[in-house]
């Protein structure tokens, strides 16, 4: 059984000019221990999906439809206090910029202890021992001496390790990592990705990895969901989505990655830009930019349907394969 | 579309029209200013005309109380002066002092800021140090002490005649540093621009560059601050006058009126002090509300 099931999720923002639908019928699932990548351009709704799952949508944004089912229990209709008890304890989160995600005035050890004691019954001594253990586990050198050091005393990469420890310390079963490596030096990105993979495997944690970096996805994930304009365009095992994409948008996305194996004359790019949320075209959201557009694409919205190797929301996905 | 129409269609006016608080405050400010400016023509009595005063009219309560006299709607003081007319003339004096003081402040602040920002180096360092030291002290305290020292320096014979100038000077001198600081900041930015470089290269003199090229470009922000400071200057003047070191009884401002009325609180003639006090409070509150709205309207992120 899936650990997380997102079914037909819609998120809306009321504004002065009317309601903006930022997520429109998003459905996917994550199995225990699985790493799911979510890719797309900025504004595609990747981060919003994560925020909706942990119940931290910025007002006035709210879930306007669909269900979020975690471990057999619906999350989208829980009260604030019930949802708070789930955050950190059952679903953790890792944010983008380690320089700003830690409270600058509280030592890292204290932040760890505070988080663990909020969710578990632990004596101060046990909590401190565990805090040191966690810092060691995420690779902070001399953890026992530095447990009460302040965030500014660590480098950016080290701080992201602390953030990871904080996200995992109450042993959640799912972690939502929102662009965890974007703000880091390229040389450190790989270390952080390796660390997350190792910890996920050791603790059996599932990860929803939100990023716009296909390289990271290819290296880390079991499956990947490609988002476009608040909808899922294609979803499937990483290998298949990367090697044989069935949605023209995914194809374009893959074409924009430089590859060492395949010799291409030049990188392709997708013409045009993603539509703004108040101007999403009728039918398939991608139709104005699509090279394979047919009349039906402009009238009717495609749903996710199985293809040979993936699931894609494109009327022409299967004819192509056939 | 002409400039006026563009202005009326702007977001600024849109936000003004949607904000009843801003509109009411603006209305109150306009009303108070009009009443003050037109006082000599529209006030029911002239409180300075000693011949028109009648002691039989003294200490009359406002019209809604039993002994009230409709020709003195807000009552009279111990000399038989009409409180309403006193407020109108008093507001006029208060506004006059505030505007002159801020004008003086602006002149000093802009000059110092331009020179510090344009010349730079040790001149800048010394001037800004002075600004720092003065900013350590609250403006009202500076105004009070300057007022005291200037009075001590002046010969007693000149004091009466120069009292208005003294208080304008005292309030003005207490508020120039923040203008200097703002102007210096923008001057330093403008100085680096190409058009200033070009003007220097073709040999235009420094004072002329400052006056004709830099000044017009740094004036905007400092004028906004000056407008907001006008309300503070009104309060400064009222406070000094209340303390008895401001304007003489022959030129009663709102603060002076409140101070005189204060003596009658215990004998029950509350109107002599409360009406001027309420006028002052409503006027300053309206200016503050307008300022709040202005800040939000110009910077939507802060909402």
């Amino acid at each position: 059984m899936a650990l997380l099931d997102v079914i037909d999720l819609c998120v809306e923002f009321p504004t002065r000019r009317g309601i903006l639908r930022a997520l429109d019928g998003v459905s996917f699932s994550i199995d225990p221990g699985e790493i799911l990548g979510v890719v797309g351009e900025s504004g595609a709704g990747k981060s919003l999906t994560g925020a909706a799952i942990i119940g931290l949508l910025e007002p006035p944004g709210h879930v306007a439809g669909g269900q979020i089912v975690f471990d057999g229990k619906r999350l989208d209709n829980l009260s604030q206090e019930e949802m708070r008890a789930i955050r950190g304890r059952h679903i953790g989160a890792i944010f983008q910029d380690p320089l700003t995600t830690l409270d600058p005035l509280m030592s890292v050890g204290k932040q760890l202890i505070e988080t663990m004691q909020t969710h578990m019954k632990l004596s101060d001594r046990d909590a401190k021992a565990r805090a040191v253990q966690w810092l060691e586990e995420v690779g902070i050198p001399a953890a026992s001496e530095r447990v009460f050091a302040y965030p500014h005393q660590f480098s950016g990469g080290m701080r992201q390790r602390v953030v990871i420890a904080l996200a995992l310390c109450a042993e959640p079963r799912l972690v939502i990592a929102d662009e965890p490596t974007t703000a880091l030096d390229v040389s450190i990105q790989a270390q952080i990705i390796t660390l997350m993979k190792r910890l996920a495997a050791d603790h059996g944690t599932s990860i929803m990895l939100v990023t716009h970096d296909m390289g990271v996805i290819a290296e880390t994930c079991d499956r990947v969901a490609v988002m476009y304009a608040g909808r899922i365009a294609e979803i499937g095992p990483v290998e298949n989505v990367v090697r044989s994409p069935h949605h023209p948008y995914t194809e374009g996305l893959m074409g924009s990655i430089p590859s060492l194996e395949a010799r291409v004359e030049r990188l392709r790019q997708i013409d045009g830009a993603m539509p703004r949320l108040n101007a999403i075209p009728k039918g398939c959201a991608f139709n104005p930019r699509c090279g394979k557009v047919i009349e039906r694409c402009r009238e009717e919205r495609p749903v996710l349907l199985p293809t040979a190797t993936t699931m894609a929301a494109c009327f022409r996905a299967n004819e192509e394969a056939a | 579309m002409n400039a006026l129409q563009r202005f009326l269609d702007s977001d600024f006016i849109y936000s003004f029209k949607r904000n009843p608080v801003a509109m009411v405050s603006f209305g109150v400010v306009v009303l108070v200013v009009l009443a003050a400016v037109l006082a000599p023509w529209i006030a029911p009595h002239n409180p300075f005309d000693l011949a028109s005063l009648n002691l039989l009219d003294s200490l009359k309560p406002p019209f809604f109380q039993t002994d009230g006299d409709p020709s003195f709607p807000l009552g009279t003081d111990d000399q038989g002066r009409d409180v309403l007319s006193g407020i109108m003339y008093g507001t006029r004096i208060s506004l006059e002092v505030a505007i002159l003081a801020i004008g003086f402040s602006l002149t000093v602040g802009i000059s110092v800021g331009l020179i510090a920002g344009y010349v730079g180096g040790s001149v800048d360092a010394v001037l800004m140090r002075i600004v720092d030291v003065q900013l350590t002290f609250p403006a009202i305290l500076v105004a009070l002490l300057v007022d005291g020292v200037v009075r001590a320096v002046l010969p007693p014979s000149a004091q009466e005649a120069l009292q208005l100038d003294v208080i304008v000077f005292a309030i003005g001198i207490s508020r120039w540093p923040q203008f200097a600081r703002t102007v210096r900041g923008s001057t330093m930015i403008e100085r680096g621009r190409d058009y200033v470089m070009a003007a220097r290269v073709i040999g235009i003199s420094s004072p002329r560059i400052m006056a004709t090229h830099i000044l017009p470009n740094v004036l905007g922000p400092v004028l906004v601050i000056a407008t907001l400071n006008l309300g503070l200057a009104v309060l400064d003047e009222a406070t000094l006058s209340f303390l008895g070191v401001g304007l003489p009884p022959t030129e009663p401002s709102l603060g002076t009126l409140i101070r005189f009325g204060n003596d009658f609180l215990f004998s029950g003639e509350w109107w002599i002090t409360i009406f001027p006090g309420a006028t002052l409070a409503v006027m300053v509150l309206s200016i503050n509300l307008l300022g709040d709205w202005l800040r939000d309207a110009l910077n939507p992120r802060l909402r």
Partner: protein
Amino acid sequence: MIAFIIARLLQAIPVLLVVGFISFAMFQFVGDPLVALLGQNFTAEEADAMRHNLGMDQPFLVQYVNFLGRVLHGDFGISYRLAKPVGELLAERLPATAELALCAAILSLLVGVPLGVLTGIKRNALISRVMMMLSLVGVSLPTFLIGVLLILLFAVQLGVLPSYGRGDVVHFAHWSTGLLTGTGRVALILPAVTLGLFQMTLILRLVRSEMLEVMRSDHIKFARARGLTPRAINFHHALSNTLVPVITIVGLQLGMLIAFSIVTETVFQWPGMGLLLVQSIGVADIPVMSAYLLLIAVVFVTINLVVDLLYFAVDPRLRGGGK
């Protein structure tokens, strides 16, 4: 830490020297000290002798240094008006002002900070909107008007609180306190509320806007994502992060408190230094004015130093310690 304090003290010295110089210039050149000391009728010889005694025949800088020396010994000259040493006069009045300012400061902090936090957290609640409106009224009412209104209500209409003076005081060596007597405590209420109200509304507005700023920050979002309780988020994480800017402004506000104690003391005839100053300004009693200026400068420099030390206590980033 010690190096930091020393650096701060060194920065304060120029400020004190400049203020000392202004104070000296006032003392020496405004008004005529000879008239003050010798009366209106004196001979040229008497005047020369007095000039010599006062060191007024010496070079300017020597006079300035002498002045500073005297000031350090607590000698501020003789009040023209009261014919008593200014040092003594100020020492007599200091406790009254100190007690008033302290009570007002405590009042404004104890009410202003919690209300600021409350309106910051529940920014859209009705009570927050009402508080914000009221606070704007508070900021717009000049201190002296608040005093007058409070007197009218509590002293004149209700007759429950005294409207002037300090009540009975108890003396301890050089200090006099009104806090230990019933009349003293009652007499303190209206002046302290008058002085504290304006500061309270300013502090409330400031804490609120800092709170709103911090609540938007990433580390608060992360604290939420870790499932911390609202209590821990609001008080451990948000409030402590608003403290640094709040301390700065509160420090400045204490300076304002001293400035506005002048007004409050005048309204309530409170026998403190502010009332002394206003009375002295009225008759151009220069020695009192120059001494007051110096004293206030020392108080402000001290406040700034305390503010810096508090930063140290609150913000670990300032305490240093490398990576």
